[in-house]
């Protein structure tokens, strides 16, 4: 086979597969499952990279049907999103703190999008190799990966849109509050005592009206509760629903508050976890981008 044919393909395949591996590694916080899950995604990533790598050399050879494969693969990526969604929805019933549909949708979307990024990285590498030579080609592929990485791995976080600080847990009668923000009513004295002894409170103060609208999303708050519980551990089992962490709003100010009884009563780590929760794309809201929203805010 001619050198100008296989070189771009190999370069694209290598860069694309590496891209998928690299992007997969960072997923583990959201997706703490098995080696088998990883095998599935690396395999699909390999296919994505292959299609991306073949496209340009095929076009140069006037094999225009090759383009249809891109369409076919795009279809596959949508299957990936569905697969991830189904998988997480299946497990949802058994989660001590459900992720909620918003968070699941976000995770599934990220999986789909990262396959496209893989394909583009492969495409860039193979096109670069074909027209500029192997070294600039690899450079181009890695540059495409870097752009994709910035896009995909640096989501806005709760810590960026809000000030996250400790808040004092207290009871008003049987009503659990964090700095006056009502969380829930806890009916059993023993449970109340445990909250006071081991519970931690966090107040999340939105930095502006956009952030306030984002925090008002129930899905966003569910994601915060899920991550806090998943990372710090919960003193909760079947039969102890009262220790489910909750994030509730202060309707007067738009602040949100989290109450949790974690396994690891480490206040600083809890704050760090809440700060790094991604802002869900479905929850992100920008009322200040509208004329009426800006007017209403002043």
């Amino acid at each position, binding site marked *: 086979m001619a050198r100008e044919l296989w070189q771009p393909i190999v370069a694209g395949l290598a860069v694309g597969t590496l891209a998928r591996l690299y992007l997969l590694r960072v997923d583990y916080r959201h997706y703490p499952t098995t080696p088998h899950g990883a095998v599935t995604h690396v395999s699909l990533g390999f296919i994505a990279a292959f299609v991306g790598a073949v496209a340009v050399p095929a076009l140069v050879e006037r094999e225009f049907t090759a383009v249809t494969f891109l369409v076919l693969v795009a279809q596959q990526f949508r299957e990936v999103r569905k697969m991830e969604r189904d998988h997480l929805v299946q497990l949802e019933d058994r989660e001590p703190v459900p992720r909620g549909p918003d968070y699941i949708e976000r995770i599934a979307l990220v999986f789909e999008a990262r396959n496209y990024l893989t394909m583009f990285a492969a495409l860039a590498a193979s096109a670069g190799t074909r027209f500029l030579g192997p070294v600039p080609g690899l450079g181009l592929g890695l540059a495409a990966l870097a752009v994709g990485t910035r896009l995909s791995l640096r989501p806005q976080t709760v810590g960026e849109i809000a000030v996250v600080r400790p808040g004092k847990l207290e009871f008003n009668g049987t009503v659990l509050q964090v700095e006056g923000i009502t969380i829930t009513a806890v*009916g059993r004295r*023993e*449970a109340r005592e445990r909250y006071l002894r081991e519970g931690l409170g966090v107040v999340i103060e939105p930095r502006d009206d956009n952030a306030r609208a984002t925090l008002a999303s129930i899905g966003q708050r569910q994601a915060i509760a899920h991550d806090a519980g998943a990372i710090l551990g919960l003193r909760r089992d079947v*039969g*102890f629903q009262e220790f*489910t962490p909750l994030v509730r709003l202060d309707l007067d100010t738009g602040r949100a508050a989290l109450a949790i009884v974690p396994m690891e009563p480490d206040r600083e780590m809890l704050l760090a976890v809440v700060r790094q929760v991604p802002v869900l794309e479905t929850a992100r809201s920008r009322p200040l981008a509208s004329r009426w929203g800006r007017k209403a805010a002043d």
Partner: protein
Amino acid sequence: MGKHTLAEIILAVIAERPDAVAAAGAPVFYVRDGGERERLATFLSQILDAMAHDLEIGVTIIVKH
């Protein structure tokens, strides 16, 4: 998703005062004092994997969230 569950429904009522509750829908457990109410709240909330809410009139309800 879209499943019907027993969430947000009063599953049981634990009452110290018979005059505060009318028996309708959920089972009502009458107890003698606060200690009994607390104990029953613990049992029922754990058995039903639900939450006990004290209505502060001598009545506790069990609700699944």
